[in-house]
Structure formats: C-alpha cells, structure tokens
C-alpha cells in the first residue's frame, strides 16, 4: 500500500489539568492489545488508526485525515504496537514524521 509521509509539528496547548503540553490534535485507536472487531469504525486489523482529527489542529494542517492508519512514527514501526506504546511514542517527540496509509489512495 502507499505510504504517505506526513510531518506534524506539535503546538502548545493545555491539558485538562491546566499544564502546558504539546498537542497534536488528533485521536488514535487500535493496537495489538485491542480487539478491532469491537471498533465502531469497523477497522479490519490491529493497527493504529486515526479516529478523529480536530479542526484547526496541527494534525489537520499537516494533512492527516480521519481513518488513516499510522504505519511508522519517527522510524518506529506502528503496525505491531500496543495502544499505550503508540500513545507514548507519539507524545515523546515534538515533531512527528509519520508514514500513514489511507484507504483508496494507492498512488500519488
């Protein structure tokens, strides 16, 4: 499948407790410890999927779309990770170099 490279620069935001953190602006779901059959979006495997992209967020600006599957993040393979690990990796770096796969996009 085609791997779409996306570079995401995080922006400063406030987390629910009021502290300043770097936010990307999207939600992920999935992971090898999750059951993809229970996903409401109907995903077909245990990969990490983008389930929501907030408007005006760095994710939207960088071209990330909903239902994208993240294949790599900063060189780290995301096709066989647990959910928690995926979250940790994403939160680690301020700039994310993602490789995503999108349904229906097979060629540039």
């Amino acid at each position, binding site marked *: 499948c085609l791997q779409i490279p996306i570079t995401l620069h995080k922006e400063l935001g406030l987390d629910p407790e009021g502290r300043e953190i770097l*936010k990307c602006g999207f939600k992920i*779901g999935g992971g090898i410890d999750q*059951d993809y059959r229970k996903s409401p979006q109907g995903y077909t495997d245990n990969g990490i999927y983008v389930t929501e992209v907030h408007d005006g967020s760095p994710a939207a600006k960088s071209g990330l779309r909903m239902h994208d599957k993240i294949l790599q993040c900063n060189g780290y393979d995301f096709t066989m990770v647990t959910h928690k690990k995926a979250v940790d990796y994403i939160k680690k770096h301020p700039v994310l170099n993602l490789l995503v796969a999108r349904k229906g996009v097979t060629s540039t």
Partner: protein
Amino acid sequence: METESVKSALSEQSSRSRRSRSHTHRNNHRLHSNRSTRSTRSHRKGDDPMAPFQTSVTLSDENRDGQEVIEVQILPQDDNWGENTTAVTGNTSEQSEVEDVGGGQWPGEPDTGFGFVCHRYVGSVLTAVLSVAAFLSPLAMVVLPKLGFFPALNPGPTVGLQQRLQLLSCGAECKGLLVSLAFKLVLLAAGAWAIFLRRPRATMPRIFLFRAAVLVLVLVCTFAYWLFYVVQVTEGAVTSATGEEAVDYKSLVAYSSSLTDTLLFIHYLAVVLIEIRHLQPTYYIKVVRSPDGESRAYSIGQLSIQRAAVWVLEHYYTEFPIYNPYLERLPVSKSRKGGSSFKFYDVDGMNNSSMQQSQSRAMLAAHARRRDSSHNERFYEEHDYERRVKKRKARLITAAEEAFTHIKRLHNDQVPAIPMDPQEAAQAVFPSLARALQKYLRVTRQQPRHSVESILAHLADCLSHDLTPRAFLEPFLVPAPVLQNEKEQKPVQTWALICEELLSRPISHGITFQLRQNDVSLLCHIRALPHFNITEEVVDPKSNKFVLRLNSETSV
C-alpha cells in the same frame, strides 16, 4: 427465691478449686462393683456381633449428680475384630481412680434433694399464691357483701332490713359493671394462662428482679385495695345508719372493677418487662466452648446476667455440636512412629565444664527445635485422620445404601416375602452395614454414644418412615446438636455461673461470664452492637446513563 443459698462468684471459685480435672472424678462404691464385673462384661459382650471387642467403655451414669464417670480402656485397634476373637489383648490404659468419697453427694452442686427442689419451686409457688389471691380479690369484693360477711351490714340496730336491701340492690348500671368485671376477669385469666402458666425454664441463683418487682406491685395493689374496701364498707354501714351518704353496691362493684383494671395493667407491665423487653437485639454475645474451641455468636437483648446465661444455655443445647472428649487427642494410626529423637555427639574431647555448658545449651536448642517441628507432625496427623474418616464414611454410605436396597426388595416382592414389622426388618438388614458403621464410629470415637439397641431402634424408625440411607446415617455423620446425645437429655442440667459482676445486674458492653459443667465450660463475651447511622444517598436517575467503552481512543 430470696432466701436460697447464693452462688456468688467467690463460692464458685472455691468449689472450682475443689473440683478436680477432667478424667479424675470422685465416685462412690458402685464403681468398685463395676470394676469387678468389667472383665466378665467384656466377655459377655463377645456374644453380640456388634460388641466392640477391643474398645470397652464403662459408663456409669446412675445418679452422679450430673457428672459422668467414664472409664475407658482404649485397646489397640485390630481390624479383624469382625471375626470371633474372644481374647482381650493387653496394653490396657485405664483411667486412674481417685479415692472413694463415701456415697455422699457432690458438695455444692445439689441437683436433687430437698434443698434444690425447694429452691426450684419456691419462686413459682409464691408467684402462684400471690397471683391467685390477687385474681380472686375482685370476685371476693363483689360477692362478700351479698353473702353477709360484713356484720355491720346485717340487719340489726344500725342498719334496717329495708336499708340493707336497698344498699345491696343492683340496678342496670351495676349489672353492666358486673358483666364488664366478669369479662375482664376472664381476659386476665386467659392472659395469665397464656404467658405465665408454665414450668419455669431455669432456677437462678439470684432473685429475678423483674418478677420480684411485679409481685411486689401486685401485693401492694391488692393490699391497698382490700384495705380501702374494708374501711369503705364498715364506714359506709355506719354512715348509712346515721343517714349520711352510704356506700351502695354499685360503687363496690365499680371499685372491684377498677381493681381488675389495675391487675390487667400490671399484667401488661409484667408481659412487657419479662417477655418483650429483651427481644430487641442490643448486644452481641460470643460463646466459646472450652475444651474443643467451638464457638457461636448471637445477638441478644437486654437481660440480667443470669437470664442471659439461661438464654445462652438454651441456644447451646440446640445449636452446638456434641462435645466428644475422646477426640481431644487425635487417634494416631499405628504405623506412625513417635517423634524423632535428637541425638548429639561428643565430637571433641574438650574441657568437661565447658562441654556441660554447651551440652545444656544444645539440649535447650534441641528441645526448641523439636517443638518447632511438632506443628508439622500435627498437620500430617490431622490430614491423615481426615483421610481415614472420609474413607470410612464413603464405605459406610455405600454399605448403608446396599443394605437399604435389600430391604426395598423385600418389600416389593409380594410372593415369597414374609411380612416383617420394622423392628424385625431392622434386625434383618443391620448385619450388612454393621461392620462399616462400627468402623466409622470407632474412627470418630462415637461408639460410647450409640448402643446397639439405640441403633436398631433408629433403623426401625427410619424404615417405617421410608427414609433413605443418608437420612438414617445423619445422626452419626452430623454430631449436632447437643441435645441429640441421649445422655444429655436429662430433666435437670446444672451449670455453674461465674462472673465478676453481680448476677442480677443487666448485661452491658465488656462483661464476660462463664458457665461450667464438668469439663465443658462456655465463655461468653458481650459487646454492644453499634448504633447504625443510615444516611440517604440520592442518585440522580439522569446519571444512570451508559456509554459503550470502545476500543479505547486516546487523544494526543
């Protein structure tokens, strides 16, 4: 009740010190005769196939004032007992006999005899006399003037015949009062019969405060009413002669009606104090039986210490399992050797004195280590014992079931059967489960409790009621409650109550008292139940909504 000997804590302690420990009881001449016939008796028992050849127990429970004198010879168990061996092997272990106390009763524990009977019944007799007197007073007050008991009212110089008739006449209102009086008396009689006319459950050492208070009240009330009555009648007769206000019959009837009312209210108070007050649970009582550690916890209301003791005994006899004194030491199978012996060697031939010191220290250490490892022995012993009990129990149940199928077939076969009544059927069926039953009873040390006759009677009973084998086996498998043991079903059971507080004081938090009988002692601790604070928590029904927890999504 007030006059009887008071069993205070102090006297209990002194009698306790005189009482000797468990298996050394004082006894009287009869035991000597038992000794002489023991050998013959065990041979005689050899004829009965059920007889425990190698375990003979002589129980002499003729009037020992509530003490069982038990002599037990536990001979080594031989699994071949079922065959006809008539030899009584050696190795008997007998209980030691203490010196003979010449035929006298156990001091301080009268179970029979005039003193006890007096103590037991004086309270009830007094109550009965007083109650009957009080009950008959209204009747007497109404009837006596008519019968002419009061000379002042008789026709004579002071009271003319016409006046007497007028005084004693009974109009409509008076008749109404008489009817109501009659009904009230009937109600009072019915109430007293329902609640109070019964054999007292217990004889208590101190006075029963509530009952005494009620009786005093009844006495005072009756006395006061009679006093005023007599004064009224005689004064009234006198005043009627002089033409002043006289007392007429209607007021006398009204007077005795008010006496009946008062008696009814006293009856109500008695019911509340004696029957109802202690029903609401206020305290938590924990009863621990001493030799084997069985315990139960109950909730109890407000009672005096002696009444609480009676209450505890009621529950003890109906809920606690039977105490088996033979199970104090678990029967060890003969294959196990004794504990390991600790050997130490003289390694170096050193100084004697220092060697002795180190020897003694080594001995102490050895003893300590032996004690540490004895818990291991206990664990394995208990485990082993439980396995054996389970094995024999399984065999017993199988044997019983087989035996019972025999008897069913005998019932169903119409043609060749000789109809037998239950006793004969029991005797016919019994031998096939006798061996398994006997082995089970031996392993659980229950044989002294069940004799052949009682087992046969029980079996006949079960057969006549169409019970299943397991129902027949229930009294042997479940040794509870205490009253199931026929030896405990005596008309009078004596227990000694020991407490630091005065026995007629009410129980309160932190009180501990002890009940003793022979080896068994029940220690009771009382704690107050907490006051419950129930708060209301309102749950908003709108918050009763749920969201599906999906494949968890995290926002980053």
